């Protein structure tokens, strides 16, 4: 994704071609210059070490690598696409990123003359090697920002002419594409004093995806857990918490979900996953939510904790009834509902076999503990 977006925003990248099938390899690979680098397009860390980056000095070598790499698996991820780029001959490699800093409430520009580094590690080991400048979003990138970066990195001030447009374009990308982070690592300087983005990473604000159609397409390709995807179809949020946790929590708000995790964890019990059904819970949606989270095989017990503010408790109860009865699951379901029409809701709940109903969160957690001791 990063490579394509850099190209679209005039952030210089090595020339490259994309290979997504083994057809016409001769045609594609015979008439380009060599040496080249073949990169598997998968979103994993340590791609190089995992064998996802290889060097080719000739068309034949390139073809051989393509046949090996395409459609193989790297760290469990399918390789469906290769990028074959010119081999840069950097005389220096730097690090450059822009991230949205929530505490400054501004974009922050980060630069280091030592490229290829793990920036978080470097920040601990040698904080002085990293230059960090908050950018006033009403001003954007100014030339003096670049001059400052170069001076502080002991680089030639004359590089400003070349570095300024790179940073400016990267900043435009950052703003226009609603990025949380754009990172170029390494950012190479070649013999002609040109800057080239050799590798990079881009993270987008989830909330902005509806207005970033182009990026939405990229994301669809990402591998995600099946239950997360399934939940998203219903606009539910499914979050895996601890591996092998046997308890699940379902509720109608993030705060309440976090509180439930905290209270259950405090008792020494692992929460495996949670599901947030959000506001406006109808019977049907409640039923869908229960179906999804119980389809996680690790889960033995579900704590449903719904505080209906404006939503009616009888509506919620109907949903729970529907789900539990139709699933004929042997998993334990503990229910706490509160809010408007609570009495009517409890009447419905009391007709469902196998549901443990509790009056408040504290009781709910106690019931979870008691039940888990038995299981």
């Amino acid at each position: 994704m990063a490579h394509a977006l850099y190209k679209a925003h005039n952030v210089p990248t090595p020339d490259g071609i994309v290979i997504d099938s083994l057809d016409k390899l001769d045609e594609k690979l015979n008439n380009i210059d060599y040496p080249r680098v073949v990169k598997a397009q998968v979103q994993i860390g340590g791609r190089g070490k995992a064998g996802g980056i290889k060097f080719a000095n000739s068309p034949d070598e390139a073809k051989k690598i393509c046949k090996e790499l395409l459609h193989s698996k790297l760290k469990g991820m399918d390789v469906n696409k290769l990028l074959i780029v010119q081999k840069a001959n950097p005389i220096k490699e730097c690090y450059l990123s822009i991230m949205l800093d929530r505490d400054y409430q501004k974009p922050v520009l980060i630069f280091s003359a030592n490229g290829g580094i793990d920036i978080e590690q470097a920040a601990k080991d040698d904080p002085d090697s990293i230059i960090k400048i908050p950018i006033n979003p009403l001003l954007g990138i100014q030339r003096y920002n670049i001059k400052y970066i170069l001076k502080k990195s002991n680089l030639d001030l004359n590089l400003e002419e070349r570095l300024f447009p790179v940073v400016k374009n990267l900043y435009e990308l950052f703003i226009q594409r609603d990025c949380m982070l754009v990172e170029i690592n390494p950012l190479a300087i070649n013999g002609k004093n040109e800057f080239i983005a050799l590798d990079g990473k881009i993270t987008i604000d989830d909330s902005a995806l509806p207005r970033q159609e182009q990026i939405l397409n990229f994301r669809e390709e990402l591998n995600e857990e099946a239950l997360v995807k399934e939940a998203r179809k219903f606009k539910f949020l499914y979050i895996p918490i601890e591996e092998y946790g046997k308890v699940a929590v379902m509720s109608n708000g993030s705060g309440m979900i976090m509180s439930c995790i905290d209270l259950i964890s405090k008792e020494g019990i692992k929460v495996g996953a949670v599901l947030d059904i959000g506001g406006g819970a109808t019977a049907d949606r409640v039923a869908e939510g229960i179906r999804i989270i119980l389809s996680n095989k690790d889960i033995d017990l579900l704590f449903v904790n719904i505080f209906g503010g404006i939503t009616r408790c009888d509506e919620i109860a109907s949903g729970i009834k529907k789900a539990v009865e139709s699933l004929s699951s042997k998993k334990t379901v503990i229910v706490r509902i509160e809010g408007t029409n609570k009495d009517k809701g409890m009447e419905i709940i009391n007709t469902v076999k196998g549901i443990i109903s509790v009056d408040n969160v504290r009781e709910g957690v106690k019931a979870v503990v008691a039940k888990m001791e038995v299981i």
Partner: protein
Amino acid sequence: MSILIDENSKIIVQGITGREGSFHTKQMLEYRSNIAAGVTPGRGGETVHGVPVYDTVKEAFEDTGADTTVLFVPPLFTYQAILEAIDADIPQIITVAEHVPVHDMMKIKNLLKYSVSRVIGPNSFGIISPGKAKAGFMAHRIFSKGNVGIMSRSATNCYETVFMMTNSNIGQSTCIGIGGDMIPGSTFSELLPFYQKDDQTKVIVLIGEIGGIEEEKAADHIKKHITKPCVSLIAGKNAPKERSMGHAGAIVASDGTGSAENKEDKLREAGVHIAESAMDIVDICKRLL
């Protein structure tokens, strides 16, 4: 006295002709909030539950002298709607939408310094001063008038707390939904001074959660400026790192920034009572009142 919203507040509803806007206008009117005007471009001249609709915020403001606007508009339109309200000099802008892009809020937050406006939210349930008025969509039946001021990043944790408070005969002065986003329009530390000055508020409750450093800033502020007893709950102690917990802002960074432990330590140092659950908040308030 209560703060920010009361029976004298004049409120505009932006997006009043929409499904949510219309429904919650009715709810607010039933709570006897003074809804002075609504705004929907192209629908000026109509009325919604008897409230006159205008095409622009500026007209609505000029005709009514409103001091607060509540935005029932979709997340991608929130930026424009806030701008329009800022530009019309509305003192208080309450924005409830979830999933407002964080770049939009970054721009707004930086622009606010030039303006006379305060923004509450986004992703906020609004503000309620029980028995006086509400501006937002909170389930008002569970609230009761009293002396505890509450600010919360989470709606559900706030409801839960208020519900149990009211059942224990502890009322609230004003409850504010800070909102669960990464860059909220107003933070705990920016709102604390209002509670400090308010005669009605005897105890201040801060319902925080993991992510960011706003609770830490609030602890600093409390240490220096707040003389009233404070109680705080931090949700998300057991949330995995680097994973947003639903609220865009509820995320612990890989270096541990935003962890519940740090927040609780700082708050405790500032003399704040730390609660482990909503019930716990109520128990502590009982002792303090």
